[in-house]
Protein backbone atom coordinates (compact mmCIF):
# COMPACT_ATOMS: atom_id res chain seq x y z
CA UNK A 1 0.00 0.00 0.00
CA UNK A 2 3.03 2.23 -0.48
CA UNK A 3 1.22 4.37 -3.04
CA UNK A 4 -1.84 4.94 -0.84
CA UNK A 5 -2.23 8.44 0.51
CA UNK A 6 -2.07 8.53 4.31
CA UNK A 7 -3.45 11.29 6.55
CA UNK A 8 -4.20 11.23 10.28
CA UNK A 9 -7.83 11.78 11.25
CA UNK A 10 -6.68 14.52 13.65
CA UNK A 11 -5.51 16.53 10.62
CA UNK A 12 -8.93 16.19 9.14
CA UNK A 13 -10.43 17.40 12.43
CA UNK A 14 -8.32 20.57 12.33
CA UNK A 15 -9.45 21.30 8.77
CA UNK A 16 -13.09 20.68 9.63
CA UNK A 17 -12.87 23.12 12.55
CA UNK A 18 -11.65 25.87 10.23
CA UNK A 19 -14.54 25.18 7.85
CA UNK A 20 -17.04 25.25 10.68
CA UNK A 21 -15.51 28.43 12.04
CA UNK A 22 -16.33 30.19 8.79
CA UNK A 23 -19.94 28.97 8.87
CA UNK A 24 -20.46 29.73 12.58
CA UNK A 25 -19.19 33.18 13.54
CA UNK A 26 -19.87 32.48 17.25
CA UNK A 27 -18.12 29.11 17.41
CA UNK A 28 -15.45 28.68 20.09
CA UNK A 29 -12.65 26.10 20.30
CA UNK A 30 -10.88 25.16 23.53
CA UNK A 31 -7.70 23.18 23.98
CA UNK A 32 -5.60 22.12 26.96
CA UNK A 33 -2.07 22.96 25.85
CA UNK A 34 -2.00 20.43 23.02
CA UNK A 35 -3.10 22.57 20.09
CA UNK A 36 -0.15 21.52 17.95
CA UNK A 37 -0.90 17.86 18.50
CA UNK A 38 -4.71 17.95 18.40
CA UNK A 39 -4.56 20.21 15.32
CA UNK A 40 -6.84 22.85 16.82
CA UNK A 41 -3.91 25.13 16.01
CA UNK A 42 -5.42 25.51 12.55
CA UNK A 43 -8.53 27.07 14.09
CA UNK A 44 -6.43 29.23 16.41
CA UNK A 45 -4.56 30.65 13.41
CA UNK A 46 -7.76 31.32 11.47
CA UNK A 47 -9.83 32.71 14.36
CA UNK A 48 -7.51 33.74 17.21
CA UNK A 49 -10.29 35.60 19.05
CA UNK A 50 -12.42 32.49 19.30
CA UNK A 51 -9.74 30.07 20.45
CA UNK A 52 -8.82 29.62 24.10
CA UNK A 53 -5.99 27.59 25.49
CA UNK A 54 -7.12 26.43 28.93
CA UNK A 55 -3.68 25.23 29.89
CA UNK A 56 -3.05 21.84 31.42
CA UNK A 57 -6.43 21.69 33.16
CA UNK A 58 -8.73 19.35 31.28
CA UNK A 59 -11.38 19.17 33.97
CA UNK A 60 -11.80 22.92 34.01
CA UNK A 61 -11.84 22.96 30.19
CA UNK A 62 -14.75 20.50 29.96
CA UNK A 63 -16.86 22.46 32.43
CA UNK A 64 -15.97 25.73 30.69
CA UNK A 65 -17.15 24.16 27.44
CA UNK A 66 -20.44 23.31 29.16
CA UNK A 67 -20.83 26.93 30.27
CA UNK A 68 -20.18 28.20 26.75
CA UNK A 69 -22.67 25.72 25.28
CA UNK A 70 -25.24 26.88 27.86
CA UNK A 71 -25.03 30.38 26.35
CA UNK A 72 -26.04 28.92 22.99
CA UNK A 73 -22.75 28.74 21.14
CA UNK A 74 -21.17 25.89 19.21
CA UNK A 75 -18.10 24.80 21.15
CA UNK A 76 -15.40 22.17 20.63
CA UNK A 77 -13.03 21.07 23.39
CA UNK A 78 -9.89 19.13 22.56
CA UNK A 79 -7.19 17.17 24.27
CA UNK A 80 -5.87 13.62 24.10
CA UNK A 81 -8.45 10.85 24.48
CA UNK A 82 -6.86 9.73 27.73
CA UNK A 83 -7.47 13.10 29.34
CA UNK A 84 -10.79 13.92 27.66
CA UNK A 85 -12.50 10.63 28.46
CA UNK A 86 -10.33 9.65 31.43
CA UNK A 87 -9.03 12.62 33.37
CA UNK A 88 -12.14 14.72 32.81
CA UNK A 89 -14.67 11.87 32.82
CA UNK A 90 -16.75 13.25 35.63
CA UNK A 91 -16.84 16.76 34.19
CA UNK A 92 -17.97 15.31 30.86
CA UNK A 93 -20.58 13.25 32.68
CA UNK A 94 -21.93 15.92 35.04
CA UNK A 95 -21.25 19.30 33.39
CA UNK A 96 -21.91 18.19 29.79
CA UNK A 97 -23.79 14.88 29.76
CA UNK A 98 -26.34 15.40 32.52
CA UNK A 99 -27.65 18.73 31.13
CA UNK A 100 -27.26 17.27 27.59
CA UNK A 101 -25.32 20.33 26.43
CA UNK A 102 -24.20 20.16 22.80
CA UNK A 103 -20.46 20.28 23.51
CA UNK A 104 -18.34 18.55 20.86
CA UNK A 105 -15.33 16.80 22.34
CA UNK A 106 -12.52 16.32 19.85
CA UNK A 107 -10.30 13.70 21.47
CA UNK A 108 -7.15 12.84 19.58
CA UNK A 109 -4.39 10.28 20.13
CA UNK A 110 -6.88 7.53 20.94
CA UNK A 111 -5.87 3.88 21.09
CA UNK A 112 -2.50 2.14 20.93
CA UNK A 113 -1.35 3.90 17.77
CA UNK A 114 -0.14 6.78 19.94
CA UNK A 115 2.94 4.59 19.83
CA UNK A 116 6.10 5.72 21.58
CA UNK A 117 4.45 7.62 24.46
CA UNK A 118 3.31 4.29 25.87
CA UNK A 119 0.57 3.07 28.18
CA UNK A 120 -0.03 6.29 30.14
CA UNK A 121 -1.15 7.96 26.90
CA UNK A 122 -2.69 5.02 25.02
CA UNK A 123 -6.39 5.28 25.80
CA UNK A 124 -8.21 2.04 24.97
CA UNK A 125 -11.12 2.67 27.33
CA UNK A 126 -12.67 5.83 25.91
CA UNK A 127 -15.52 4.19 23.97
CA UNK A 128 -16.56 2.30 27.10
CA UNK A 129 -16.43 5.39 29.31
CA UNK A 130 -18.18 7.74 26.91
CA UNK A 131 -20.74 5.18 25.75
CA UNK A 132 -21.95 4.72 29.32
CA UNK A 133 -23.02 8.38 29.59
CA UNK A 134 -26.72 8.74 28.74
CA UNK A 135 -27.30 10.74 25.57
CA UNK A 136 -23.65 10.85 24.54
CA UNK A 137 -22.90 10.23 20.87
CA UNK A 138 -19.59 8.43 20.22
CA UNK A 139 -17.88 8.62 16.84
CA UNK A 140 -14.62 7.08 15.66
CA UNK A 141 -13.82 7.92 12.04
CA UNK A 142 -11.78 5.56 9.88
CA UNK A 143 -10.06 7.99 7.56
CA UNK A 144 -9.54 11.56 6.49
CA UNK A 145 -12.75 11.83 4.47
CA UNK A 146 -14.97 10.23 7.08
CA UNK A 147 -13.48 12.31 9.90
CA UNK A 148 -14.17 15.56 8.13
CA UNK A 149 -17.71 14.72 7.12
CA UNK A 150 -18.48 13.35 10.58
CA UNK A 151 -17.33 16.55 12.28
CA UNK A 152 -19.33 18.73 9.91
CA UNK A 153 -22.44 16.58 10.40
CA UNK A 154 -22.14 16.25 14.17
CA UNK A 155 -21.75 20.02 14.59
CA UNK A 156 -25.46 20.23 13.74
CA UNK A 157 -26.42 17.60 16.33
CA UNK A 158 -28.24 19.02 19.35
CA UNK A 159 -26.43 17.00 21.99
CA UNK A 160 -22.96 16.10 23.25
CA UNK A 161 -20.63 14.25 20.90
CA UNK A 162 -17.35 12.49 21.66
CA UNK A 163 -15.01 12.08 18.69
CA UNK A 164 -12.02 9.80 18.79
CA UNK A 165 -9.29 10.72 16.31
CA UNK A 166 -5.91 9.08 15.78
CA UNK A 167 -2.35 10.32 15.88
CA UNK A 168 -1.12 7.96 13.18
CA UNK A 169 -1.42 8.76 9.49
CA UNK A 170 -3.80 6.15 8.06
CA UNK A 171 -4.80 5.31 4.47
CA UNK A 172 -7.48 7.44 2.86
CA UNK A 173 -10.16 4.83 2.19
CA UNK A 174 -13.09 6.85 0.93
CA UNK A 175 -13.76 9.23 -1.92
CA UNK A 176 -14.76 12.72 -0.84
CA UNK A 177 -17.23 13.00 -3.70
CA UNK A 178 -19.33 9.92 -3.01
CA UNK A 179 -18.96 9.38 0.73
CA UNK A 180 -21.78 10.66 2.91
CA UNK A 181 -21.82 10.45 6.69
CA UNK A 182 -25.05 9.93 8.55
CA UNK A 183 -25.00 10.01 12.34
CA UNK A 184 -25.87 6.59 13.77
CA UNK A 185 -25.55 4.73 10.49
CA UNK A 186 -23.18 1.92 9.65
CA UNK A 187 -21.84 1.68 6.12
CA UNK A 188 -21.78 -1.51 4.10
CA UNK A 189 -18.34 -1.75 2.48
CA UNK A 190 -18.72 -5.23 0.99
CA UNK A 191 -21.38 -7.92 0.74
CA UNK A 192 -20.84 -11.42 2.12
CA UNK A 193 -22.72 -14.42 3.43
CA UNK A 194 -20.47 -16.51 5.69
CA UNK A 195 -19.56 -13.98 8.36
CA UNK A 196 -19.76 -10.23 9.02
CA UNK A 197 -16.84 -8.08 10.08
CA UNK A 198 -17.83 -4.89 11.90
CA UNK A 199 -14.95 -2.45 12.10
CA UNK A 200 -14.35 1.06 13.38
CA UNK A 201 -11.51 3.58 13.20
CA UNK A 202 -8.14 2.49 11.88
CA UNK A 203 -9.21 -1.17 11.98
CA UNK A 204 -11.46 -0.52 8.97
CA UNK A 205 -8.38 -0.52 6.75
CA UNK A 206 -7.21 -3.81 8.28
CA UNK A 207 -10.70 -5.25 7.89
CA UNK A 208 -10.72 -4.42 4.17
CA UNK A 209 -7.45 -6.35 3.81
CA UNK A 210 -8.82 -9.21 5.91
CA UNK A 211 -11.91 -9.50 3.72
CA UNK A 212 -9.65 -9.82 0.67
CA UNK A 213 -7.61 -12.57 2.33
CA UNK A 214 -10.78 -14.43 3.31
CA UNK A 215 -12.06 -14.10 -0.23
CA UNK A 216 -8.84 -15.69 -1.52
CA UNK A 217 -9.55 -18.61 0.80
CA UNK A 218 -13.10 -18.96 -0.48
CA UNK A 219 -14.79 -17.31 2.50
CA UNK A 220 -17.40 -14.65 1.83
CA UNK A 221 -17.25 -11.92 4.48
CA UNK A 222 -19.62 -9.00 4.74
CA UNK A 223 -17.87 -5.83 5.89
CA UNK A 224 -19.53 -3.02 7.83
CA UNK A 225 -17.80 0.21 8.71
CA UNK A 226 -19.26 1.55 11.99
CA UNK A 227 -18.13 5.14 12.55
CA UNK A 228 -20.90 5.85 15.07
CA UNK A 229 -20.42 3.57 18.04
CA UNK A 230 -23.31 5.19 19.89
CA UNK A 231 -26.11 5.27 18.96
CA UNK A 232 -25.26 2.04 17.19
CA UNK A 233 -26.97 1.07 13.93
CA UNK A 234 -29.22 -1.79 15.09
CA UNK A 235 -30.79 -2.32 11.72
CA UNK A 236 -27.59 -3.06 9.84
CA UNK A 237 -26.36 -5.30 12.68
CA UNK A 238 -29.54 -7.36 12.95
CA UNK A 239 -29.63 -7.89 9.19
CA UNK A 240 -25.98 -8.97 9.25
CA UNK A 241 -26.59 -11.40 12.11
CA UNK A 242 -29.64 -12.91 10.40
CA UNK A 243 -28.04 -13.16 6.98
CA UNK A 244 -24.50 -14.23 7.85
CA UNK A 245 -24.98 -15.90 11.26
CA UNK A 246 -21.62 -14.90 12.72
CA UNK A 247 -19.95 -11.61 13.63
CA UNK A 248 -16.43 -10.38 14.25
CA UNK A 249 -15.99 -6.89 15.67
CA UNK A 250 -12.63 -5.17 15.39
CA UNK A 251 -11.47 -1.97 17.08
CA UNK A 252 -8.41 -0.24 18.49
CA UNK A 253 -9.97 -0.37 21.94
CA UNK A 254 -10.35 -2.77 24.84
CA UNK A 255 -12.55 -5.74 24.07
CA UNK A 256 -14.47 -4.60 27.15
CA UNK A 257 -17.22 -2.06 26.56
CA UNK A 258 -16.33 -0.72 23.12
CA UNK A 259 -17.69 -1.53 19.65
CA UNK A 260 -17.64 -5.25 20.46
CA UNK A 261 -19.57 -4.62 23.64
CA UNK A 262 -22.10 -2.45 21.82
CA UNK A 263 -22.64 -5.07 19.09
CA UNK A 264 -22.95 -7.91 21.61
CA UNK A 265 -25.41 -5.94 23.75
CA UNK A 266 -27.47 -5.08 20.69
CA UNK A 267 -27.65 -8.55 19.19
CA UNK A 268 -27.92 -10.66 22.35
CA UNK A 269 -31.55 -9.71 22.84
CA UNK A 270 -32.64 -9.68 19.20
CA UNK A 271 -30.65 -12.16 17.16
CA UNK A 272 -27.98 -13.93 19.21
CA UNK A 273 -25.24 -15.34 16.99
CA UNK A 274 -21.57 -16.06 17.73
CA UNK A 275 -19.74 -12.75 18.17
CA UNK A 276 -15.96 -12.62 18.44
CA UNK A 277 -14.69 -9.34 19.85
CA UNK A 278 -11.32 -8.47 18.39
CA UNK A 279 -9.40 -5.62 19.96
CA UNK A 280 -7.03 -4.95 22.79
CA UNK A 281 -7.25 -7.69 25.40
CA UNK A 282 -7.62 -6.72 29.06
CA UNK A 283 -4.13 -5.22 29.32
CA UNK A 284 -2.21 -1.96 29.05
CA UNK A 285 -0.19 -0.97 26.01
CA UNK A 286 3.49 -0.12 25.85
CA UNK A 287 5.96 2.03 23.95
CA UNK A 288 7.08 1.42 20.41
CA UNK A 289 6.57 2.67 16.87
CA UNK A 290 2.80 2.68 16.24
CA UNK A 291 2.71 -0.03 13.60
CA UNK A 292 4.89 -2.32 15.72
CA UNK A 293 2.70 -1.74 18.76
CA UNK A 294 -0.43 -2.52 16.76
CA UNK A 295 1.20 -5.71 15.46
CA UNK A 296 2.38 -6.69 18.94
CA UNK A 297 -1.17 -6.51 20.24
CA UNK A 298 -2.58 -8.36 17.24
CA UNK A 299 -4.46 -5.46 15.69
CA UNK A 300 -3.82 -6.76 12.19
CA UNK A 301 -5.69 -8.11 9.18
CA UNK A 302 -4.20 -11.57 9.84
CA UNK A 303 -5.74 -11.69 13.29
CA UNK A 304 -9.12 -10.59 11.93
CA UNK A 305 -8.95 -13.45 9.41
CA UNK A 306 -8.30 -15.94 12.19
CA UNK A 307 -11.14 -14.54 14.27
CA UNK A 308 -13.52 -14.67 11.31
CA UNK A 309 -12.73 -18.35 10.84
CA UNK A 310 -13.32 -18.95 14.53
CA UNK A 311 -16.71 -17.20 14.34
CA UNK A 312 -17.71 -19.36 11.38
CA UNK A 313 -16.58 -22.50 13.23
CA UNK A 314 -18.72 -21.48 16.23
CA UNK A 315 -21.68 -20.92 13.95
CA UNK A 316 -21.30 -24.37 12.45
CA UNK A 317 -20.63 -26.18 15.71
Amino acid at each position, binding site marked *: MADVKKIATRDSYGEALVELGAQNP*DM*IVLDADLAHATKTLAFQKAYP*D*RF*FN*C*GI*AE*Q*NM*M*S*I*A*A*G*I*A*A*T*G*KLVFASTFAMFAAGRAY*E*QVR*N*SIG*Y*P*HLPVKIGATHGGLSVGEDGASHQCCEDFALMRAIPGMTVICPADYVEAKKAVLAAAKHDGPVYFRFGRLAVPVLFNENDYSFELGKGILLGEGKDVTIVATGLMVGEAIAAREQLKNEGISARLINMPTIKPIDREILVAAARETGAIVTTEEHSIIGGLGGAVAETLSGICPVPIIRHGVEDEFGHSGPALEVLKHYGLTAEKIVAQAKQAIALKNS
Partner: protein
Amino acid sequence: MDEAKKKSLTKMALRVRMGAIEGVFHAKSGHPGGSLSVADVLTYLYFEEMKVDPQKPHWKDRDRCVLSKGHAAPALYATLANRGFFSVDLLKTLRKIDSILQGHPNMKQVPGIDMSTGSLGQGISTAVGMALSAKTSEDSYRVYTVLGDGELGEGQVWEAAMFASAKKLDNLVAVIDNNNLQIDGSLEEVNSPYPIPEKFQAFGWHTIEIFGHDFDQIEAAFQEARTVKGKPTVIIARTVKGKGVSYMENNFIWHGQAPGQDLYEQAMKELGEQLAGLED
Protein backbone atom coordinates in the same frame (compact mmCIF):
# COMPACT_ATOMS: atom_id res chain seq x y z
CA MET B 1 -29.35 50.86 51.78
CA ASP B 2 -32.59 52.44 52.98
CA GLU B 3 -34.47 50.77 55.81
CA ALA B 4 -37.54 49.86 53.76
CA LYS B 5 -35.46 48.01 51.20
CA LYS B 6 -33.43 46.27 53.87
CA LYS B 7 -36.61 45.20 55.64
CA SER B 8 -38.10 43.90 52.44
CA LEU B 9 -34.97 41.86 51.65
CA THR B 10 -34.77 40.54 55.22
CA LYS B 11 -38.36 39.40 55.02
CA MET B 12 -37.80 37.77 51.67
CA ALA B 13 -34.72 35.95 52.96
CA LEU B 14 -36.85 34.58 55.82
CA ARG B 15 -39.43 33.32 53.30
CA VAL B 16 -36.58 31.70 51.39
CA ARG B 17 -35.38 30.03 54.61
CA MET B 18 -38.89 28.79 55.37
CA GLY B 19 -39.25 27.47 51.82
CA ALA B 20 -35.96 25.63 52.12
CA ILE B 21 -36.91 24.05 55.45
CA GLU B 22 -40.33 23.17 54.06
CA GLY B 23 -38.72 21.33 51.17
CA VAL B 24 -36.13 19.47 53.21
CA PHE B 25 -38.71 18.44 55.82
CA HIS B 26 -41.11 17.01 53.26
CA ALA B 27 -38.29 15.30 51.38
CA LYS B 28 -37.02 13.82 54.66
CA SER B 29 -33.55 14.56 53.31
CA GLY B 30 -31.46 17.40 51.91
CA HIS B 31 -29.10 20.08 53.10
CA PRO B 32 -30.64 22.66 55.45
CA GLY B 33 -27.46 24.08 57.07
CA GLY B 34 -25.81 25.41 53.92
CA SER B 35 -29.18 26.48 52.51
CA LEU B 36 -29.80 28.73 55.49
CA SER B 37 -26.28 30.19 55.43
CA VAL B 38 -26.51 31.20 51.78
CA ALA B 39 -30.12 32.46 51.85
CA ASP B 40 -29.29 36.15 52.23
CA VAL B 41 -26.77 36.16 49.39
CA LEU B 42 -29.17 34.33 47.06
CA THR B 43 -32.02 36.66 48.01
CA TYR B 44 -29.91 39.73 47.23
CA LEU B 45 -28.72 38.23 43.93
CA TYR B 46 -32.18 37.39 42.59
CA PHE B 47 -34.14 40.31 44.06
CA GLU B 48 -31.62 43.15 43.63
CA GLU B 49 -28.44 42.36 41.78
CA MET B 50 -29.32 40.25 38.79
CA LYS B 51 -31.12 41.21 35.61
CA VAL B 52 -33.61 38.36 35.23
CA ASP B 53 -37.17 37.95 34.01
CA PRO B 54 -39.22 35.13 35.55
CA GLN B 55 -41.51 35.23 32.49
CA LYS B 56 -38.53 34.65 30.19
CA PRO B 57 -36.15 32.32 32.07
CA HIS B 58 -34.11 31.71 28.89
CA TRP B 59 -33.83 35.40 27.98
CA LYS B 60 -30.50 35.60 26.17
CA ASP B 61 -29.24 38.77 27.83
CA ARG B 62 -30.11 37.82 31.41
CA ASP B 63 -27.48 37.71 34.11
CA ARG B 64 -26.55 34.14 35.05
CA CYS B 65 -26.05 32.49 38.41
CA VAL B 66 -24.48 29.09 38.89
CA LEU B 67 -24.98 27.52 42.32
CA SER B 68 -21.68 25.68 42.44
CA LYS B 69 -22.57 24.40 45.91
CA GLY B 70 -25.51 22.60 44.35
CA HIS B 71 -26.53 20.93 47.60
CA ALA B 72 -27.97 24.29 48.68
CA ALA B 73 -30.68 23.67 46.06
CA PRO B 74 -33.49 24.03 48.63
CA ALA B 75 -32.51 27.70 49.10
CA LEU B 76 -32.15 28.31 45.37
CA TYR B 77 -35.54 26.73 44.65
CA ALA B 78 -37.17 28.80 47.38
CA THR B 79 -35.52 31.94 45.99
CA LEU B 80 -36.64 31.24 42.43
CA ALA B 81 -40.17 30.33 43.52
CA ASN B 82 -40.53 33.55 45.54
CA ARG B 83 -39.11 35.49 42.59
CA GLY B 84 -41.90 34.08 40.43
CA PHE B 85 -40.13 31.50 38.28
CA PHE B 86 -42.52 28.79 39.50
CA SER B 87 -45.12 28.21 42.19
CA VAL B 88 -44.02 28.16 45.84
CA ASP B 89 -46.38 25.19 46.24
CA LEU B 90 -43.81 23.12 44.37
CA LEU B 91 -41.27 23.51 47.17
CA LYS B 92 -42.93 20.72 49.16
CA THR B 93 -42.26 18.32 46.29
CA LEU B 94 -38.46 18.59 46.68
CA ARG B 95 -36.75 15.27 45.97
CA LYS B 96 -40.06 13.47 45.31
CA ILE B 97 -40.15 10.93 42.51
CA ASP B 98 -42.36 12.99 40.17
CA SER B 99 -40.99 16.44 41.05
CA ILE B 100 -38.94 18.75 38.86
CA LEU B 101 -37.07 19.75 42.02
CA GLN B 102 -34.20 17.27 42.00
CA GLY B 103 -31.90 16.86 44.99
CA HIS B 104 -29.42 19.04 43.14
CA PRO B 105 -30.27 21.68 40.50
CA ASN B 106 -31.26 20.49 37.02
CA MET B 107 -31.27 23.24 34.39
CA LYS B 108 -33.33 21.13 32.00
CA GLN B 109 -36.33 20.92 34.31
CA VAL B 110 -36.46 24.00 36.51
CA PRO B 111 -37.13 27.49 35.13
CA GLY B 112 -34.46 29.91 36.32
CA ILE B 113 -31.69 27.37 36.86
CA ASP B 114 -28.79 28.38 34.62
CA MET B 115 -26.65 25.26 35.11
CA SER B 116 -27.05 21.77 36.48
CA THR B 117 -24.75 21.36 39.45
CA GLY B 118 -24.17 19.10 42.41
CA SER B 119 -20.71 17.73 41.83
CA LEU B 120 -18.53 20.24 43.67
CA GLY B 121 -15.93 22.31 41.85
CA GLN B 122 -17.61 22.18 38.46
CA GLY B 123 -20.08 25.03 38.79
CA ILE B 124 -17.43 27.73 38.99
CA SER B 125 -15.86 26.43 35.78
CA THR B 126 -19.18 26.52 33.96
CA ALA B 127 -19.69 30.10 35.19
CA VAL B 128 -16.23 30.92 33.84
CA GLY B 129 -17.36 29.46 30.49
CA MET B 130 -20.44 31.69 30.47
CA ALA B 131 -18.38 34.78 31.36
CA LEU B 132 -15.86 33.91 28.65
CA SER B 133 -18.66 33.45 26.14
CA ALA B 134 -20.08 36.88 27.02
CA LYS B 135 -16.67 38.50 26.54
CA THR B 136 -16.17 36.78 23.19
CA SER B 137 -19.36 38.20 21.72
CA GLU B 138 -19.31 41.43 23.75
CA ASP B 139 -22.54 40.62 25.56
CA SER B 140 -23.18 42.78 28.61
CA TYR B 141 -24.66 40.20 30.98
CA ARG B 142 -22.85 39.36 34.19
CA VAL B 143 -22.19 35.93 35.64
CA TYR B 144 -22.35 34.96 39.32
CA THR B 145 -21.39 31.73 41.02
CA VAL B 146 -21.83 30.70 44.63
CA LEU B 147 -19.43 28.22 46.19
CA GLY B 148 -19.18 26.50 49.52
CA ASP B 149 -16.04 26.95 51.58
CA GLY B 150 -15.49 23.20 51.84
CA GLU B 151 -15.81 23.14 48.05
CA LEU B 152 -12.49 25.00 47.88
CA GLY B 153 -10.90 21.59 48.48
CA GLU B 154 -11.69 20.67 44.88
CA GLY B 155 -8.65 21.30 42.68
CA GLN B 156 -10.91 22.30 39.81
CA VAL B 157 -11.89 25.48 41.72
CA TRP B 158 -8.29 26.63 41.47
CA GLU B 159 -8.01 25.64 37.81
CA ALA B 160 -11.04 27.85 37.21
CA ALA B 161 -9.63 30.65 39.39
CA MET B 162 -6.35 30.65 37.45
CA PHE B 163 -8.12 30.71 34.07
CA ALA B 164 -10.63 33.43 35.03
CA SER B 165 -7.91 35.88 36.02
CA ALA B 166 -5.69 34.92 33.07
CA LYS B 167 -8.59 35.83 30.75
CA LYS B 168 -9.43 38.99 32.75
CA LEU B 169 -13.06 38.01 33.31
CA ASP B 170 -14.29 41.12 35.15
CA ASN B 171 -17.88 40.15 34.33
CA LEU B 172 -17.59 37.23 36.78
CA VAL B 173 -18.29 37.36 40.52
CA ALA B 174 -17.82 34.37 42.80
CA VAL B 175 -19.25 34.28 46.30
CA ILE B 176 -17.78 31.94 48.90
CA ASP B 177 -20.37 30.96 51.51
CA ASN B 178 -17.84 30.79 54.34
CA ASN B 179 -19.85 29.14 57.13
CA ASN B 180 -16.71 27.29 58.25
CA LEU B 181 -18.41 23.89 58.46
CA GLN B 182 -18.39 21.02 56.00
CA ILE B 183 -20.02 17.63 56.17
CA ASP B 184 -17.52 15.97 58.49
CA GLY B 185 -16.72 18.93 60.75
CA SER B 186 -15.04 22.32 60.71
CA LEU B 187 -12.87 23.34 57.79
CA GLU B 188 -9.76 23.32 59.95
CA GLU B 189 -10.50 19.80 61.15
CA VAL B 190 -11.06 18.44 57.66
CA ASN B 191 -8.59 20.17 55.31
CA SER B 192 -8.21 23.89 55.81
CA PRO B 193 -8.58 26.18 52.79
CA TYR B 194 -7.46 29.18 54.87
CA PRO B 195 -6.39 31.88 54.29
CA ILE B 196 -9.01 32.24 51.55
CA PRO B 197 -8.57 35.90 50.46
CA GLU B 198 -4.80 35.56 50.12
CA LYS B 199 -5.21 32.47 47.97
CA PHE B 200 -7.59 34.23 45.57
CA GLN B 201 -5.37 37.33 45.53
CA ALA B 202 -2.43 35.13 44.57
CA PHE B 203 -4.60 33.77 41.75
CA GLY B 204 -5.18 37.31 40.49
CA TRP B 205 -8.67 38.01 41.84
CA HIS B 206 -10.08 41.12 43.46
CA THR B 207 -11.26 40.07 46.93
CA ILE B 208 -13.92 41.51 49.22
CA GLU B 209 -14.67 40.22 52.72
CA ILE B 210 -18.08 40.72 54.25
CA PHE B 211 -20.50 39.37 56.86
CA GLY B 212 -22.90 37.50 54.63
CA HIS B 213 -26.05 38.18 56.63
CA ASP B 214 -25.80 42.00 56.45
CA PHE B 215 -27.57 43.39 53.39
CA ASP B 216 -25.63 46.66 53.57
CA GLN B 217 -22.38 44.76 53.27
CA ILE B 218 -23.77 42.40 50.61
CA GLU B 219 -24.93 45.32 48.49
CA ALA B 220 -21.68 47.24 48.92
CA ALA B 221 -19.71 44.16 47.85
CA PHE B 222 -21.69 43.56 44.65
CA GLN B 223 -21.53 47.28 43.81
CA GLU B 224 -17.77 47.30 44.34
CA ALA B 225 -17.47 44.24 42.09
CA ARG B 226 -19.10 46.19 39.25
CA THR B 227 -16.31 48.78 39.41
CA VAL B 228 -13.47 46.26 39.18
CA LYS B 229 -11.91 46.08 35.72
CA GLY B 230 -9.58 43.50 34.24
CA LYS B 231 -10.00 40.83 36.88
CA PRO B 232 -12.73 38.69 38.43
CA THR B 233 -14.05 39.42 41.92
CA VAL B 234 -14.58 37.02 44.78
CA ILE B 235 -16.75 37.96 47.75
CA ILE B 236 -15.83 35.94 50.81
CA ALA B 237 -19.02 36.01 52.83
CA ARG B 238 -18.58 34.93 56.43
CA THR B 239 -21.84 33.22 57.32
CA VAL B 240 -23.49 31.11 59.99
CA LYS B 241 -24.40 27.56 59.01
CA GLY B 242 -28.05 26.99 59.83
CA LYS B 243 -28.64 30.75 60.18
CA GLY B 244 -32.06 31.61 61.55
CA VAL B 245 -32.89 28.30 63.23
CA SER B 246 -31.46 28.21 66.74
CA TYR B 247 -30.65 24.53 67.03
CA MET B 248 -29.12 24.36 63.54
CA GLU B 249 -26.78 27.33 63.89
CA ASN B 250 -23.10 26.40 63.80
CA ASN B 251 -23.88 22.68 64.11
CA PHE B 252 -22.42 20.62 61.27
CA ILE B 253 -24.81 17.71 61.86
CA TRP B 254 -27.42 19.86 60.06
CA HIS B 255 -25.28 19.91 56.91
CA GLY B 256 -27.15 17.05 55.33
CA GLN B 257 -30.14 15.85 57.32
CA ALA B 258 -33.77 16.79 57.61
CA PRO B 259 -35.51 17.76 60.86
CA GLY B 260 -38.26 15.49 62.20
CA GLN B 261 -41.78 16.74 62.88
CA ASP B 262 -41.07 18.51 66.19
CA LEU B 263 -37.87 20.19 65.06
CA TYR B 264 -39.50 21.15 61.76
CA GLU B 265 -42.30 22.86 63.64
CA GLN B 266 -39.81 24.60 65.89
CA ALA B 267 -37.78 25.83 62.89
CA MET B 268 -40.88 27.18 61.13
CA LYS B 269 -42.06 28.81 64.35
CA GLU B 270 -38.72 30.53 64.91
CA LEU B 271 -38.50 31.77 61.33
CA GLY B 272 -42.18 32.74 61.35
CA GLU B 273 -41.70 34.79 64.50
CA GLN B 274 -38.74 36.60 62.97
CA LEU B 275 -40.89 37.37 59.95
CA ALA B 276 -43.84 38.51 62.09
CA GLY B 277 -41.51 40.81 64.01
CA LEU B 278 -40.77 42.65 60.76
CA GLU B 279 -44.42 43.09 59.70
CA ASP B 280 -45.73 46.63 60.05
